[in-house]
């Protein structure tokens, strides 16, 4: 059906184009033009410039109307999130002001000074004051953004170990995620891919003799207690992956041969987030859209009804199924978390004997 639709559109456009080519060709016959713009062309294209300016503004407005909920700028679910969102909003506002003004000047001048036979342009080769003005203004604005940005960056990346963060390993492999908790001692047992033993189901290559590994817990769904700092230690066993947790404004690559890290403090539980009016609107909208595609979705074996969940996505190209490498994240109260983790098998118990 869609194929047919595309095909018809393509055909239609092709025919339309052919027609236009013909018309332009005919229009040329007999006209004594040598293919250099005349006053008529200048006027026509001058007006088109204004039209185009309006188009740019219109597509900006349309994008805001249809795609403007910008989930990456609101409802952050981590402690550093709102600060980052703030920086993002400030940058965006500056960008939109500059964009609006400069595009206006560019297209308006293109219209205003469209050529006329016999008029002479102004010989205006340079002006150091102007040059200085538009060097200094960007310098000031950018200096502000750089300083703000660097403070935010340092805040996020320098993890304060004295806050006793919960240590969680994120382990990536083509094409799924595992998470490992340090257990009661909050220390991860040593691991290396050379210790992987599939027969014994030691898939993360953990050193079975390491005392710290005895209470480690390996899971396929990431649970986090709300309000407690987490420090993620990322590993990958095969190719590059990237642990992207957009709701928490968090991302870090997983690199074979080294351990990378990223830390944050979740501030909103999954249950609370589901009650958030913005999120409810978004979910309702998505479910309405899914209803339109009911047959397709059920055929693919998915749940028709979407419910909000935090997600961990792979965001570094890693091979064929890169597009489906995800893990659910549940943020819950400390009690819920304790109850959940008590139910999980510890590492020694998860091994095949």
């Amino acid at each position, binding site marked *: 059906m869609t194929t047919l639709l595309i095909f018809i559109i393509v055909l239609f456009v092709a025919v339309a184009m052919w027609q236009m080519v013909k018309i332009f060709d005919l229009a040329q016959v007999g006209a004594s033009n040598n293919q250099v713009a005349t006053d008529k062309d200048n006027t026509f294209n001058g007006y088109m410039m204004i039209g185009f300016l309006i188009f740019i503004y219109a597509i900006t407005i349309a994008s805001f109307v249809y795609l403007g909920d910008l989930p990456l700028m609101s409802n952050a679910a981590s402690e550093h999130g709102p600060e980052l969102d703030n920086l993002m909003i400030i940058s965006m506002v500056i960008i939109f002001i500059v964009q609006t003004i400069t595009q206006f000047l560019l297209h308006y001048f293109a219209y205003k000074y469209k050529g006329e036979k016999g008029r002479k342009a102004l010989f205006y080769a340079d002006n150091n004051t102007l040059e200085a003005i538009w060097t200094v203004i960007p310098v000031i604005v950018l200096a502000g953004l750089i300083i703000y940005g660097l403070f935010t960056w340092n805040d996020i990346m320098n993890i304060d170990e004295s806050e006793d963060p919960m240590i969680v390993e994120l382990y990536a492999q083509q094409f799924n995620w595992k998470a490992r908790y340090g257990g009661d001692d909050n220390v991860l047992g040593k691991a290396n891919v050379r210790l992987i033993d599939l027969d014994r189901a030691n898939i993360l290559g953990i050193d079975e003799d390491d005392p710290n590994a005895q209470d480690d817990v390996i899971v396929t769904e990431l649970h986090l207690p709300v309000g407690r700092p987490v420090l993620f230690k990322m590993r990958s066993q095969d190719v590059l992956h990237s642990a992207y947790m957009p709701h928490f404004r968090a991302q870090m690559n997983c690199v074979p041969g080294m351990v990378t890290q990223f830390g944050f403090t979740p501030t909103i539980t999954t249950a609370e987030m589901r009650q958030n009016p913005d999120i409810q609107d978004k979910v309702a909208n998505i479910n309405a859209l899914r209803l339109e595609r009911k047959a397709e979705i059920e055929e693919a074996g998915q749940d028709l009804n979407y419910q909000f969940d935090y997600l961990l996505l792979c965001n570094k*190209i890693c091979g064929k199924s890169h597009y489906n490498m995800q893990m659910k994240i549940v943020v819950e109260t400390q009690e819920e978390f304790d109850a959940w983790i008590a139910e999980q098998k510890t590492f020694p118990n998860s091994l095949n004997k």
Partner: protein
Amino acid sequence: MSATADTHAHDDHDVHHHKETFVTKYIFSQDHKMIAKQYLITGTIMGVIGVLMSIMFRMQIAWPEQPNVLFEALLGKWAPEGVMDADIYLALVTIHGTIMVFFVLTAGLSGTFSNLLIPLQIGARDMASGFLNMISYWLFFVSSVVMIISLFVEAGPAAAGWTIYPPLSALPMAQGGSGMGMTLWLVSMAIFIASSLLGSLNYIVTVINLRTKGMSMTRLPLTIWAFFVTAVIGVISFPVLLSAALLLIMDRSFGTSFFLSDIFIQGEVLHYQGGSPVLFEHLFWFLGHPEVYIVLLPALGITSEIIATNSRKPIFGYRAMVASILAIAFLSTIVWGHHMFISGMNPFLGSVFTFTTLLIAIPSAVKAFNYITTLWKGNLQMNPAMLFSIGLVSTFITGGLTGIILGDSALDINVHDTYFVVAHFHLVMGISALYGMFAGIYHWFPRMFGRMLNKNLGYLHFWVTAICAYGVFFPMHFIGMAGLPRRYYTNSNFPLFDDTANANVVITMFAIVGGIFQLVFLYNFFVSIFYGKKAEQNPWKSNTLEWTAPVKHMHGNWPGEIPHVYRWSYDYSKPGHDEDFVPQNVPMKDGEEELHH
């Protein structure tokens, strides 16, 4: 202003007419004008392939896993029953990116216009070495052929992204495309780099040594400044990519561990130990970032020339323009880390790269403001080349501004590798450079082929392209701001992103229409070569030297003596002259003064 009088080895030997055979004239030509055409045609063919690929993978994104006759026809076994396979999706994205960046906008753009314009605008008989120039083109040709052959490899073409990060690109068992396909990709790129280096060295030497009498560096048109500096950046950074490629080949074929360590894949542990993929990222982006300026600067140079000519005004702030080209060139070599904020490198390095990156916004802003001021109080001749140049300034601003977000390490955490990035780099380098290339073609077509392109078709081409380019890439920012990752074969496994699905359909529609309308250009181009209106000697009333040379194919560019240069190239609408242009080879009148600094 100092006037360097360059001695000129060619000056007094008469233009010799060797007997030119078909082969020496059209195939193994050493004439820079013919080589420029060869680059242009090869680049155009690669461009058609690259655009076709983008349309195919856009269709997959809009209508995921739907059967499509186009896929069935073009992808064969990679689209069983017309449904695109996930492996080939990544391969299409990879090869599209590679072709567009290197084959179309590096070789196709620089190769065409540096070759055509450097000798003609500085007043030289040809490049410093016609022979190396010929070799450079043929290496480019061979690398294009190898790249195309790689599309037909049994296990599929390279599919690790145009950035080919190892280990994905290093391990054949990680991905079908990392076998023979990747080998050919690397071979093709190694040959490409050799070609690019030969070309660049030639451009540098020619600009330094072969300027005609009176053509001091401060009288060079900005086009030449841009090509010259681009060549310098290329010579500095391409060798680094070559070494990265060679080390990767060693890891792949000879078991070394430059980029690999501790890998367990497909049930076995590999022997690699001690290398790091992060090292590869550094080497790659040491070229990769300057590369975007290698793509962009020539386009900006071309536009500077075209905007001045068609505004009938001097370019505003010539010296500031040269200074910003130099500043951009310098800074472009110390910002590569902004592609690696979350690669696992030390966060302190991230701070440094944020600083240098936002610095580079300053010369870029200066350039944009200078373009706008050049239009002010001009007498704008809206030729198609002028439209594309104005279009370039527009997309350069839109795309450049979002760099402020991506260059900020803190903000990049969030939008890294999302469609926000795709939107940013397509506007600021892809579309801008493409516009620069189109502008150059419309402007210098008469110089190349002695005929004019049809202007009405040019208008049609520009306006549809301009609308579609924004239609495709503007909404992508917003999809990216919703967190949608790039390089995903389909988003249907993430209900979270379902509300971006309709936008993706609209984007694809714009892409299809925009793609199809490039046929208008191709039609205009190929038909006009043979049937276009005959061009006058100087159709745009331009000041630069290329318009003083006869159009007829002739080795040595000028019959008789090379014109001498008495002024800069921007004396448009200069007070005291009747005409609104004064070519560079017109001597100063008695008492005439330079009115610029």
